[in-house]
C-alpha cells in the first residue's frame, strides 16, 4: 500500500506547483490513506479473530492434538472430544444444500435475466431478494413446524419405500435430520445465487448474444455461450452461497436433530460445527470443554479458508487465467 503511494509520488517529479495543486495532492493522499486504513481494519479484525480463537483453543490443541479431528466421541462428562461427526455434518449438509440450490438458483437467474419480460424479472428478483432478509430463526421454525411434518409423513416414507435399497435413504422417518437441514439451507442460499447470477448475466456484453445469433445459433445455443462466458461469476456466486451454508447456525440447529453420530443416511439426524457451538457454548463449564468448542470454531474457520482457496483455484482453472470476463467476482 505505502510502497505504491511512494512509487506514484516518485513517478511524477515535483514541479513548481501552485499552493492549490499542492493542497489537492495532500487531500488525495489523506483520502487514500484514510481508505487504506479502513481496509486495514478488516485485516485487523480477521487477525484478532484468528488470534483469539487460537488462544482459546490452545489447551485443547495441546491435550487432544490430531485426535480431535478424527475422533468420533464427544463426551463432556468424560472430557473426551472428537469433532469428526460435526465436520462430517457441516460438509454433508452444505453439499446437500448446494446440490439443490445451484441448479434452482442458476435456472431462476437465467429465466429472470434472459427470458422473463423485464418487468416480471424485476418483480421476481425483488421477491427473491426479500427471501434473503428473512431471519434464520424463522427458516428454522418453518423447517421444524412445517417442513418436518411434511417430510415425516409424506416424503421420507416414500423415499424409504422406493429408494430404501440405497444406504442414503434408510432408517426411521424422523422428519428432522440431514435432509431437512439440507433443504432449509438450500432455501436460505438460493437468493444469494439468484441475485448474484442474475446481475452477472445482465452485465454480460450484448455483443456476445448478437454474435451468437449472427452465427445462426438458436436461442438455447446463444444461452449456452452466455452461460459459458459467465461461468466464473456464477461459480463465485455459488461459493458465496456455500460460505453462508457452512456457517449457518440457528436454522440448522433447529432442524438437524443434533446427534453426534455419523450416518450414511440422509434421513438420520446429525450435527454441524456451528450447531454444536450454538448448542453447548453457553452452558459449557470446564476448561478443556470450552477449549474444545473454541477449537471447533478454529476448524470451521480453517475449513472456510480452504474452501475459498479451492474455489479461487477452480475459477482460475476454468477461465485459464482470463481476467477480462465480466463479473469475475
Amino acid at each position, binding site marked *: 500500500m505505502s510502497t505504491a503511494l511512494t512509487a506514484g509520488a516518485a513517478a511524477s517529479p515535483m514541479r513548481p506547483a501552485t499552493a492549490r495543486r499542492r493542497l489537492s495532492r495532500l487531500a488525495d493522499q489523506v483520502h487514500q490513506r484514510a481508505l487504506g486504513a479502513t481496509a486495514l481494519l478488516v485485516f485487523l479484525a480477521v487477525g484478532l479473530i484468528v488470534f483469539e480463537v487460537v488462544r482459546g483453543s490452545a489447551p485443547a490443541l495441546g491435550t487432544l492434538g490430531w485426535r480431535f479431528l478424527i475422533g468420533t466421541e464427544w463426551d*463432556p462428562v468424560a472430557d473426551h472430544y472428537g469433532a469428526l461427526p460435526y465436520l462430517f455434518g457441516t460438509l454433508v449438509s452444505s453439499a446437500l444444500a448446494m446440490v439443490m440450490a445451484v441448479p434452482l438458483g442458476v435456472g431462476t437467474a437465467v429465466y429472470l435475466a434472459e427470458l422473463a419480460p423485464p418487468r416480471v424479472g424485476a418483480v421476481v428478483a425483488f421477491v427473491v431478494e426479500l427471501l434473503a432478509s428473512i431471519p434464520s430463526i424463522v427458516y428454522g421454525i418453518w423447517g421444524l413446524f412445517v417442513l418436518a411434518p411434511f417430510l415425516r409423513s409424506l416424503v421420507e416414507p416414500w423415499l424409504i419405500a422406493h429408494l430404501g435399497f440405497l444406504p442414503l435413504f434408510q432408517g426411521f422417518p424422523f422428519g428432522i435430520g440431514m435432509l431437512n437441514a439440507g433443504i432449509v439451507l438450500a432455501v436460505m442460499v438460493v437468493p444469494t445465487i439468484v441475485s448474484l447470477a442474475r446481475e452477472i448475466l445482465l452485465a454480460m456484453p450484448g455483443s456476445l448474444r448478437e454474435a451468437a445469433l449472427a452465427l445462426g445459433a438458436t436461442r438455447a445455443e446463444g444461452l449456452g455461450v452466455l452461460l459459458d462466458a459467465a461461468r466464473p461469476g456464477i461459480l463465485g456466486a455459488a461459493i458465496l452461497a456455500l460460505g453462508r451454508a457452512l456457517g449457518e447456525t440457528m436454522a440448522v*440447529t433447529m432442524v438437524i436433530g443434533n446427534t453426534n453420530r455419523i450416518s450414511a443416511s440422509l434421513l438420520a439426524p446429525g450435527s454441524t460445527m456451528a450447531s454444536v457451538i450454538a448448542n453447548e*457454548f453457553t452452558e459449557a463449564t470446564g476448561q478443556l470443554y470450552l477449549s474444545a468448542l473454541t477449537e471447533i470454531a478454529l476448524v470451521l474457520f480453517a475449513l472456510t479458508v480452504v474452501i475459498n482457496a479451492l474455489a479461487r483455484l477452480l475459477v482460475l482453472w476454468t477461465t485459464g487465467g482470463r481476467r477480462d470476463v465480466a463479473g469475475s467476482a
Partner: protein
Amino acid sequence: MHRILRFAALALITVAAAIPAGAQSLTGAGATFPYPIYSKWFDAYHKQTGVSINYQSIGSGAGIQQVKAGTVDFGASDAALSNDRLKELPRRILHFPTVGGAVAMVYNLQGLDKPLQLTPEIITGIYMGQITVWNDKKVAAANPGVTLPPAPVMAVHRSDGSGTTNIFTSYLAAVSGEWKEIIGANTSVSWPSGIGGKGNEGVAGLVRQTPGAIGYVELAYAKQNQLTVAPVRNQAGRFVLPSLASTTAAVEGSAAALARDVRTPIVNAPGPDAYPISGLTFLLVYRDSKDPAKAKTLADFIAWAMRDGQAMVEALDYAKLPDAVIKVNQANLKLLTASGKPVFAGR
C-alpha cells in the same frame, strides 16, 4: 413550601442513612432458567430498598466464566459446581440455592385408556436405547390394564447444554448404575440414542409432532403449554406428577443431605410426595470479597430472597424452598466475609 423542603430533607437523611451500609448496585450473570423469578425479585427489591441489580441471563457456563474473571458480583448456575470445577476458580465460592424446579416427562401417545405411568427403569431403558417399542414388557408391567401400541419409541433430549438436562441426567445416574457408569450427568452428555431439540420449545415441538415420542421439559414450560405429562415412580414407590408442591417435597426430603452440602443433587429424593426429577438453581458468591459494601448488599439481598422473595416464587411456576433449606442458606450467609470480616449480621 416548608413542608416540601422538610420532606426533602427527611428523604435525604433516610437515604443517607441507608447508603453507607452497602452498595447501590450489583451485577450478576448466569443461568437462564431462573431469570423470570430473578428479574421479579430484583425489581421488587429495587422498589423496597433502592438497590439495583443488573442480571444478564447468558447461561450457567458463561456466568461461571464471568465469576472466574471477576467481572460480576455474583454468578448463577442451574448445576452445582463439582469439586474439579471449583478448583478452576481463583477463590472459594459458596452456593446459595434459591428456588426449585422440576423436569416433566412429556409424551405423545394417542388413544391410551389411562395416562402413561413411568418408572426409573422405563426412562433409563428408553434413553439408553434399550426400549424401542411402546409395548415393551417393562412399560406394560408399570401400566396394567393399558393397551400399549406397538409404535416405535422416539426419545427426545435437549440438544443445547442446559440445567434441565443436568437435572434429568443426574436423575438417570442416580437410579441406574449403568447410566452413571457409561453416560454420567452434565449439562450436555453423549446421548446413546434419540434425537435432540433445541430448547424446551424444540423438545416440545418434536414430541408434539411425532407419534410415539417422549421428551423432558421444564415443568413451567409443560404447564404453560398444556403438554401431556406422565407421573414418575419415586423412591417411596408412588407415582407422582410433577408440581410445585411435589418439587418442594423433594427439596424437603433432601434437606438433611443439603445441610451437609447444598450441592447434593435432590433427584430421586425420599418422601412419599417427592417428585423424583427435581433440582435446585444456585447463586454463586465468593466467600471472601474485596468490596465490603457490595458483599453486604449481596448478603442482604439473599437474606431478603429467602424471606420475602419466597412468597413470589410460586406465581411464576417455581418451587419454593422448605424452611430447612432456608435455614442452611441463612447459616451460610454468616460465612460471607470481606477481607476476612463478616459482612452479614442480620438473620
